C-alpha cells in the first residue's frame, strides 16, 4: 500500500536488532536458543514461499506474510503460537491485506501436499482462529512497505536497470526476507544494500551515485554485511538443525 513511509506505522514500529533477537522466555525454557529462533523463522519464511508458489500469489504477498510472521514473534512465543500454523496463517492474512485473496481450504490442501508430517496438519478452523490471534498480535497494523518499490526506482536512477542487475537485486531482496532486516531497517535502505552488493558482484562503479544520494553509507554497508554474513552461514542451515530446533517446541 502506497503512502508516505515516514508517517507510517511501519516506520514507527521499526525495532532495534536486540529487540528482534529476544527469544521469548517461554521458548527459552524449552531450550530454544537465538540460533534456533532464527533458524525456525528462516524455515517458516521458506515454508511461506513454498506455499505461496503453490497457490500462486505475488512476491509482495510473500514478503508481507513473512513480515507478519516475524513481527508476531517479536511479541509472542513459538510455544503458544506454533510456527507451523502461524506461517500459513500469515500467508492467508497477507493475501487478504494485499488484495490477492487465497481461500483457506486451498491453503489447507497444499499444506497437506507439501508436508506429510502430522505436525504441519492444520484445518481451516485452525487457520481462521489463528488469524484473529495474529491480527491482535500485530495490533491490526497490516501495512508493510517493501524494498521492491524503491528498488526499481533506484536502479533506473542509477542507470543499472538492465535485466541482469534487475534480476540479481530482486533476488537479493527476496533473500533478505529470510532474515529480520525488514523489522529493523527502512525498506529503501535494504534496497540500496542489495544494489550495493549486486554492483560489487557485477563490478559496476556506483560510488558517485551513492555519494549523490546522501545516505549514510555506513548503514548501507552494515546491512550489506549482514546479508553477506547470512549467505556465508546459509550452507550450515541444514534440515537436521532446523528439525532439531523445531523439535524443542
Amino acid at each position, binding site marked *: *500500500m*502506497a*503512502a*508516505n513511509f515516514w*508517517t*507510517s*506505522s511501519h516506520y514507527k514500529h521499526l525495532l532495534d536488532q536486540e529487540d528482534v533477537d529476544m527469544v521469548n522466555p517461554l521458548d527459552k525454557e524449552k531450550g530454544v536458543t537465538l540460533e534456533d529462533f532464527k533458524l525456525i523463522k528462516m524455515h517458516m519464511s521458506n515454508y511461506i514461499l513454498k506455499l505461496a508458489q503453490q497457490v500462486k500469489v505475488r512476491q509482495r504477498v510473500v514478503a508481507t506474510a513473512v513480515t507478519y510472521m516475524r513481527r508476531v514473534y517479536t*511479541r509472542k512465543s513459538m510455544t503458544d503460537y506454533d510456527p507451523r500454523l502461524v506461517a500459513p496463517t500469515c500467508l*492467508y*492474512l497477507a493475501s*487478504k*491485506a494485499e*488484495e490477492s*485473496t487465497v*481461500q*483457506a481450504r486451498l491453503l489447507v490442501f497444499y499444506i497437506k501436499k507439501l508436508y506429510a508430517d502430522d505436525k504441519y496438519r492444520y484445518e481451516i*478452523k485452525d*487457520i*481462521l*482462529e489463528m*488469524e*484473529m490471534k495474529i*491480527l*491482535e*498480535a500485530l*495490533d*491490526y*497494523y*497490516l*501495512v508493510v512497505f517493501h524494498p521492491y518499490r524503491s528498488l526499481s526506482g533506484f536502479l533506473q536512477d542509477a542507470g543499472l536497470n538492465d535485466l541482469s542487475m534487475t534480476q540479481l537485486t530482486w533476488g537479493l531482496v527476496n533473500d533478505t526476507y529470510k532474515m529480520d532486516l525488514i523489522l529493523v531497517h527502512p525498506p529503501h535502505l535494504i534496497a540500496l544494500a542489495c544494489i550495493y552488493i549486486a554492483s560489487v558482484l557485477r563490478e559496476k562503479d556506483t560510488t558517485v551515485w551513492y555519494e549523490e544520494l546522501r545516505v549514510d553509507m555506513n548503514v548501507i554497508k552494515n546491512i550489506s554485511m549482514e546479508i553477506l554474513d547470512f549467505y556465508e552461514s546459509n550452507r550450515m542451515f541444514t534440515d537436521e538443525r532446523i528439525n532439531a530446533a523445531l523439535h524443542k517446541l
Partner: protein
Amino acid sequence: MAMAAPGQLNVIESPSRGSRSVDCFEKLEQIGEGTYGQVYMAREIETGEIVALKKIRMDNEREGFPITAIREIKILKKLHHENVIKLKEIVTSPGPEKDDQGRPDGNKYKGGIYMVFEYMDHDLTGLADRPGMRFTVPQIKCYMRQLLTGLHYCHVNQVLHRDIKGSNLLIDNEGNLKLADFGLARSFSNEHNANLTNRVITLWYRPPELLLGTTRYGPAVDMWSVGCIFAELLHGKPIFPGKDEPEQLNKIFELCGAPDEVNWPGVQKTPWYNQFKPTRPMKRRLRDVFRHFDRHALELLEKMLTLDPAQRIPAKDALDAEYFWTDPLPCDPKSLPKYESSHEFQTKKKRQQQRQNEENAKRLKMQHPQQHTRLPPIQQGGQHAQMRQGPSHSIHGSQAAVAAGPSHHYGKPRGPSGGPGRYPPGGNPSGGYNHPNRGGQTGGAGYGSGPYPPQGRGAPYGSSGMPAGPGGPRGGGGSGYGVGAPNYPQGGPPYGGSAAGRGSNMGGNRNQQYGWQQ
C-alpha cells in the same frame, strides 16, 4: 473496571500488545445498523469518553476476518487527517457474546470484534433531514470544503473511498466534517492496471463510468459522488434517485446529457455501453435545470458532474474553485450552530415513529397531524424527507416497527454494496411520495397533488404507474428535466424553502424556491 467472567481470560490484563476488551466500554445506544454490523454510541468506562463502537460482523464468514474490515482497518490506520474519521482502537469481546443470540461454542471471536471510533454527533443526511433544517450558504461551503479537503487527502494517499454519501459524512458539534465508513474503500495505484469492482458506491451517488461497467477507474468516482452531494445540498433533495441501474443512468443522462465520443472519448468501449446507451438524443441541461444556483456553485457543479471521468474535476482543483473564494466565504466550522445529535439512523427512526403517530391520528380522523402545524419550509422538509425515504420504507414497512433503518455512517447496508444500497431495488418509490402525512391526502395521486397545485407535468420521479423505461418515465413535460424548475419545487427543497427566506433565499415565489439564489 470490567472483569472477565469466571473461567474466561481477562483480556484487559494481557500485556501491552493485543486488544482490549469491549467490556472497557458501556454501550449507550444504537446509532447505526447495516449488514456490516451495528454501531453503538458507548462510553469508555475508565475515562468517560464517548465513542462509537462499530461491530464487525463475523458470522457467515467462511473466510475468517472479513476482507472488507481488513481494508477498512488498513486504510484507517494509515490515514490521519482532521477530515477523516479516526480509528482509535480495535477491541474484542472476550468469550461468547452476551448481548447476542448467544452462540456458546465455536470461535471465541465470532461476533465479537469492534472498531472504536471517535464519536460524531451527526451525519450529513441525518442533519439535513432534521425537520426545519436549513443550511446557510457559508455553512454549505464550509462542509463542502471539508469534504473536499478530506477526500483530497485520501486521494493523495491513494485511497478511493467508494461510498461517498451523506450518511458517511459525519459532523460534530464543532462543525467539523469527517469522512467515515471506509468499508468499501480501496487503495489504488496510479498505474490503474488493477481491475476493481464496479459494484460500489450507493446507487444514487454512483458515477456513469461504474454504471457502464468500467473496472479500471480512479479518484474521479468519488468526485461524482461529491457532485451529487453538492447538488443535493443546494437543491434540497437527491438529484439522481434511481431505483435500479438503468433508471439511474437514465436520470444521469437526462440531466447531464447522453454520453458520446465527443464529450466522453472512449465511452463506446465501456462494457455495458451498448446495453444502456440512450435511445434518443439527450442534451445536457444541468445549467438550465439548476440555473437558479449561484453562478460559482453551478460552475463547480458542472465540473464535478462531468460524464467523462478523465475530465471531471479532481478534489484539489475543486478546492481552488472560485466558489470557495468568493463571498459569502465558507464559515469557520466553530461558528456553526450546535444541534442535538442526529444520525440518519435515528432521524429515520423518529420519522417512522412520527408516521406511526400520524397513521394513528388519521385513523382517528384528525385532519391535521403535527406536521401540519409547521411552517411551510418545515413542511417541505418533511416532504423532502419522505422523498428521500420513499424506497427504503417499502422494506422497513415489512419489517414493521423494528426501526432498523439501515444506512448510518459507521455501518450500513453493505449487502448489495454496489447494488442499490440503501434503496432496495424494486421498492416502489411512489409509496413515499404519497405518504398520508403529506398533507393528509390519501395515496394515489403522487406528489403532484400535494398542497401545491400540480404543475401539470406529471410526476418527475416516476411515481406509481410510471414505468421507468428509458426515454419516458416522466409523463407530460416530455423529458423529465425539461420541465426544469417546476419539477423541483414540488419536491419541496427544504433548504431553500419558500417562506422565511434566510439570507440569499428567495422566499415566496415558488417557482424559484429552491436553493440559493445568488
